[in-house]
């Protein structure tokens, strides 16, 4: 039943774009029907996933005339957790698209977008339930290509072209690693069915290669540092509701892959967990550090995805360490934290991207330091964005705190070392997470403050207007989701624990103790949240009684300066400067300074831009010099058949010599 619902959802989602194509003469109707189909599919699929989370998993299999392939599908609790955002967020984003990206006004580009949008949603759903390596890879490839088409939507812009091609190249580098990964797994298990891969031994050297390939291939998709380089550009280049989908959901398939593959193994070496934890910690800290230095809202949000995927990876790493050190508390808490953060991040990051899209839509700029004062013109967008900002900063009583609290708890359990030896490395997750939380709060105070508070810094910001109901409604739903999960985290724990059992292969009773402890804590978190809300209500009432309705207004206190202008407000860049300075060791900002000179300086200017250290200072220059070298080689040998054959001969001889000298074994 549950699986059937998900299959129906995937089918409806995949075909939803067909309406746009079929009704291209009546674009408004076509888009409405496509959206309705997608929403219907998502509703079915989410229902199926919830059933599976409640313990009603299912499997189904059919023959498929492909070498080693079969149409095997399986829906377990792990798949179900990922299916919730995978189906839910695209549905909301496509409703948003009705107001943000009306097909009637956008023409052919919009039809392509609608097609790819449905396709990517269906493919992601299939990735989450595929139970055969070949099927998985096919769905993965479709997902990657549809993602490319989505990024490529506004292909007339040069920065979009660049970002889309970087995305395509990196996606295929990752796919290559996945082909090797599943070939190895198939060799280890003797079959390409996932069911046959369960219970492998993680000790051998081949298993080590499997994990390394998974970390590379899936890490590239998840955007873990230093494999994040394609992400900020691609997510900033796409239309905002597409960015919400890419950032909120598509990245998670990378995490799903890592979890699925590590779930195949019976015992895992400690090095796996350590590697994942370190990669996560690096992503979290550097992601938020880079985000702090950005001044384009969408690039900033994209870097925050790197941070949040890092937090998820840290949770997963803790769970892996728990498995290798025999610490069930670490397994259940780390895994639950990571899995809940998958859902949470989809909610608040989707919300934030949609909010950023509304701002972009209203003012025509994404440049932080040109915005300001929009809370007056766009009160609902501002309120929803504030909820998302507080949630992503891990502040109670919202959902970001709930999942980070579980990861914190896992980290503290690690240092406690009940039963088994303490795992000091895992303990370091807590201070890292604390630092990241503080930096994220700083960053979102900067974003919210510069975009929505104060006075407009440019005429464009002054012309801002509230978003249409079609755009506001999805944001409202996501904001409510953030609040509900945050207020009642305990309600989710049973499903999460079921997924932890499915993933780790540990017996349920072993995990029940720490799970019960977490549940007790989670209910008390809800209690404190209730006390907080009660306190807010009482204090607000007292304040209203004291002040009454009429409140005298005056200009902001200018500290004695009588004529301040909006341009004199603190900007986002200056707000973050002190913190950005702390990261001078990874940042290489390019600044342009024209200092004021002379007694009555006419003009002075300052501009700064922060290139991505990995992409702009590492990979692109390296590729550039590689191209130069090959160009020179081609100039040397090019044109003549003789020299080309000579090169081939040298290559073949080299391979033979390598084989003769011992080869790969």
């Amino acid at each position, binding site marked *: 039943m549950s699986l059937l619902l998900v299959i129906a959802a995937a089918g409806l989602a995949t075909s939803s774009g067909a309406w746009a194509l079929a009704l291209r003469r009546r674009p408004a109707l076509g888009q409405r029907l496509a959206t309705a189909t997608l929403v219907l599919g998502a509703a079915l699929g989410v229902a199926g996933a919830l059933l599976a989370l409640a313990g009603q998993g299912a499997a189904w299999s059919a023959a498929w005339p492909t070498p080693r392939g079969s149409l095997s599908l399986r829906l377990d609790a792990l798949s179900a957790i990922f299916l919730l955002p995978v189906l839910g967020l695209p549905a909301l984003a496509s409703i948003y698209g009705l107001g943000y990206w009306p097909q009637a006004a956008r023409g052919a580009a919009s039809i392509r977008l609608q097609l790819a949008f449905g396709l990517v949603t269906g493919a992601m759903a299939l990735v989450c339930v595929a139970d055969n390596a070949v099927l998985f890879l096919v769905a993965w490839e479709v997902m990657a290509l549809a993602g490319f088409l989505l990024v490529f939507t506004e292909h007339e812009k040069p920065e979009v072209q660049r970002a889309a091609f970087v995305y395509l190249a990196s996606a295929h580098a990752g796919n290559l690693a996945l082909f090797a990964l599943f070939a190895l797994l198939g060799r280890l298990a003797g079959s390409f069915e996932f069911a046959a891969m369960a219970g492998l031994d993680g000790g051998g050297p081949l298993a080590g290669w499997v994990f390394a390939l998974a970390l590379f291939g899936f890490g590239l998709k998840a955007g873990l540092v230093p494999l994040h380089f394609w992400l900020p550009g691609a997510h900033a280049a796409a239309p905002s509701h597409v960015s919400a989908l890419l950032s909120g959901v598509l990245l998670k398939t990378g995490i799903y892959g890592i979890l699925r593959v590590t779930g195949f193994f019976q015992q895992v070496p400690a090095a796996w967990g350590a590697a994942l934890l370190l990669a996560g910690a690096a992503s979290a800290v550097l992601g938020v550090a880079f985000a702090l230095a950005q001044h384009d809202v969408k690039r900033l949000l994209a870097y925050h995805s790197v941070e949040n995927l890092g937090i998820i990876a840290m949770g997963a790493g803790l769970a892996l360490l728990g498995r290798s050190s025999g610490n069930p508390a670490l397994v259940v808490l780390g895994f639950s934290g990571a899995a809940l953060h998958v859902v949470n991040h989809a909610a608040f990051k989707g919300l934030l991207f949609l909010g950023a899209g509304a701002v972009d839509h209203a003012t025509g700029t994404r440049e932080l330091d040109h915005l*300001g*004062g929009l*809370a007056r013109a766009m*009160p609902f967008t*501002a309120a929803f964005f504030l909820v998302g900002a*507080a949630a992503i900063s*891990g*502040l*109670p009583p919202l959902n970001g*705190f709930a999942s980070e*609290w579980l990861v914190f708890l896992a*980290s*503290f359990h690690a240092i406690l070392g009940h039963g088994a030896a*303490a795992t*000091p490395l895992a303990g370091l997750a*807590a*201070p890292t997470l*604390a*630092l990241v*939380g*503080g930096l994220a*709060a*700083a960053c979102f*105070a*900067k974003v*919210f*403050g*510069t975009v929505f*508070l*104060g006075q407009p810094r440019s005429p464009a910001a002054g012309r801002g207007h509230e978003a249409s109901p079609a755009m506001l409604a999805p944001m409202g739903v996501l904001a409510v989701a953030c609040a509900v999960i945050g207020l009642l985290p305990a309600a989710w724990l049973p499903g999460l624990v079921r997924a932890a059992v499915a993933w780790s292969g540990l017996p349920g009773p072993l995990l029940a103790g720490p799970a019960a*402890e977490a549940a*007790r*804590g989670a209910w*008390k*978190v809800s*209690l*404190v*949240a209730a006390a*907080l*809300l009660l*306190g807010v209500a009482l204090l607000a009432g007292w304040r209203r009684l*004291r002040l009454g309705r009429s*409140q*005298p*207004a*005056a*200009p*902001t*206190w*200018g*500290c004695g300066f009588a004529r*301040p202008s909006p341009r004199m407000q*603190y900007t986002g860049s*200056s*707000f*973050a*400067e*002190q*913190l950005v300075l*702390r990261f001078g060791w990874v940042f290489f900002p390019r600044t342009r300074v024209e200092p004021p000179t002379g007694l009555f300086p006419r003009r002075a200017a300052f501009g700064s831009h922060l290139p991505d250290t990995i992409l702009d200072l590492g990979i692109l220059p390296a590729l550039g010099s590689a191209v130069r070298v090959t160009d020179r080689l081609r100039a040397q040998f090019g044109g003549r058949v003789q020299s080309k054959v000579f090169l081939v001969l040298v290559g073949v001889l080299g391979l033979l010599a390598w084989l003769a000298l011992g080869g790969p074994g």
Partner: protein
Amino acid sequence: MILAVLQLLAFLALPPLLLGVIGRVKARVAGRVGPPLLQPWRDLRRLAGKGAVFSRTTTWVFRAGPVVGLAAVLAAGLLVPMGAPSSALSFAGDFALLAGLLGLARFVSVTAALDTGSSFEGMGAAREVTFAALAEPALFLGFLSLVRSTGGLDLSHLLGDGLAAAWQSDGPALLLVALSIFVVALAENARLPVDDPSTHLELTMVHEVMVLDHSGPDLALIQYGAALKLYLFGALVVKLALGARFADPAAAFVAFLCGQLLFAAGIGVVESTMARLRLSRVPQLLVGASVLSGFALVLLLR
């Protein structure tokens, strides 16, 4: 049970007294008489009775700041043991919620400051988030050390029963932790040497400059909240220093209150003898605090 209620009542009533003690100690060191100990209470009552003026730039965010900020600190009071053997609500990982609630209070006060559009308040807000982000790891490293040393996961154990054995075996490491938490307390409560609460030069202030535009009852809420926060951090330091030295709960409660007064007096002495650090030097101090508690953790893990 009586003590559990009493500690919450003391939490509501006593914090302004700490500010009074600090003021009095500073005055005495400087050779003045100083204001009466209850002056902070009178200030609060005076502010609460006044009307308020609002900047035309501000929105509801500005008005929500003081309310949510105070409610968050009040809720945090449920999590910290303040004299009684256990806090009102104690559960594994409650210190993470404590840090989260204090973070919420900070977040709303920062957004309220940015809502005025004043560059001075923006400056203060930027400094506040910078220092807070750097203080956070120090606090968590301290908690980690305590978890490691006492073998518990909730504040009531970390700062209560668990400490008796811990001071016996890991005294030096706990001393480092206490020092580190004291530094964090100074930074989080905007005291010297991080911030000078008595200065009136906007360019050099951190916390005070953020609340320039608040007036009347809103300012009363903010100042009361600041006092409560000081009391919370005082509770952490005092409980940690006291350990489980007093077996009788009533004696322990009295000792705790005396400890809070000593904590306030200690801050008064620090403020009388130290100058404010240059702003660019503050991160050094906070990273130093992290290093101290991290070092303690390494000693405990060895």
